[in-house]
């Protein structure tokens, strides 16, 4: 079973040379720490920046320079600032190669719910609906089950949707799965995790074809 940093490490394996990537709040943000040395990956922050860098050194914070999670950040050489319309324009036009974001639920048809829990204070969808509706490659990073132990990979989402049929892949503490026309398909298991455990914790339709390799972390 992976911890959050290991999930981020596994997600980082999805990065390819030259990719423009948008990382959501939470585990996805940690992916930035595991970009392989020498791999040229450019991070997009939807509040108006391409070429996001690390957090600033103490004392180097600039209030004009934040990411979409409102955290102080830095830039890398070759960065560019732009307004929010251009930012979502490039997302909508499919120029961002990969979006990684968290979710409360994912359905076997790739629907995602991650913005609203009925009865709780609704904070809003921010840029999530734009990202999931537009990005060509969407990977969800989340825990396989909720705190009650219930599966978050469902036949269909119970919570209000953020986007429909958009998730391509899911990385959890237990497994890597892709979404196919047949539902979830198990690709990898976390070290020490059995296929049986993954099957038991996946409520949506799940196909398991042949031997399932362990993730390389």
């Amino acid at each position, binding site marked *: 079973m992976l911890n959050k940093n290991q999930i981020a490490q596994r997600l980082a394996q999805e990065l390819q040379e030259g990719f423009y990537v948008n990382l959501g709040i939470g585990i996805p943000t940690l992916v930035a720490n595991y970009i392989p040395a020498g791999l040229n990956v450019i991070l997009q922050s939807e509040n*108006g920046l391409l070429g996001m860098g690390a*957090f600033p050194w103490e004392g180097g914070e600039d209030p004009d320079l*934040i990411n979409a999670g409102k955290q102080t950040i830095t830039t890398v050489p070759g960065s560019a600032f732009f307004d*929010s*319309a251009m930012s979502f324009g490039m997302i909508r036009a499919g120029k961002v190669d990969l979006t990684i974001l968290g979710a409360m639920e994912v359905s076997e048809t790739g629907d995602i719910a991650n913005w609203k829990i009925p009865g709780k204070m609704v904070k809003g969808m921010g840029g999530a609906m734009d990202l999931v*509706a*537009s990005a060509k490659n969407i990977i969800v990073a989340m825990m396989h089950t909720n705190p009650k132990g219930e599966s978050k990979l469902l036949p269909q989402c119970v919570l209000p949707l953020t*986007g429909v049929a958009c998730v391509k892949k899911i990385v959890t503490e237990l497994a890597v799965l892709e979404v196919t026309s047949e539902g979830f398909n198990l690709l990898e298991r976390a070290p020490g995790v059995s296929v049986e455990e993954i099957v038991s914790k996946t409520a949506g339709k799940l196909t398991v074809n042949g031997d399932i390799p362990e993730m390389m972390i």
Partner: protein
Amino acid sequence: MTKVFKNEQEVIDDLPDGAVVMLGGFGLCGIPENCIRALVAKGTKDLTCISNNAGVDDFGIGLMLQRRQVRKMIASYVGENAEFERQLLSGELEVELIPQGTLATRCLAAGYGMPAIFTPAGVGTEVGMGKEVRNFNGKDYLMEYAFEADYALVKAWKGDTAGNLVYRETARNFNPLMAMAAKITIAEVEELVPAGELDPDHIHTPGIYVHRIFQGRDYEKRIEQRTVRKKESNV
């Protein structure tokens, strides 16, 4: 006829109760601090505010919420403050949540004279309910309308007496879009310079979109999430 106003009081003086007001900024980054301060002091009320966020309890639009000056909030992400939540749950405050890209593009549409735009954001979700859906090349899009706002309050880094604006880093965000989108655009700037001092190749908002401009003062520029790397003591 000059666009240059003396201060924040003068510039918002005719902004009436009940107005639809856009406020630039993302979180607390690039918000029109001076204009908000003046609106709070004046007590202008029943406002409909269009802004990506609603500030925190004691800063930004949060200050206006504390004075109950906001009747309706149109935003993409809110609730960083307790007073907002209280007013929302008690029904004092009306809230309309809009996907962030839709919010930005509806501003752009207004500034570019396009009555409506198409976006896939929200298709198949409750955001799309009751809206026109249209399929282009096999993909569904929602038709969303250009905003109609009375005032835009934006914050730029530098501005000139012709109304040209330049923003700094991610404090740009919604500011240039809202600057284009309202009937009357009010810009506050950290530094106001004479026309001709800004490089015409690097104006973000051309002066034609800006009706009033003034040099702000006492910028706090509060940081919402201070995140830093600790310097290693042995470096």
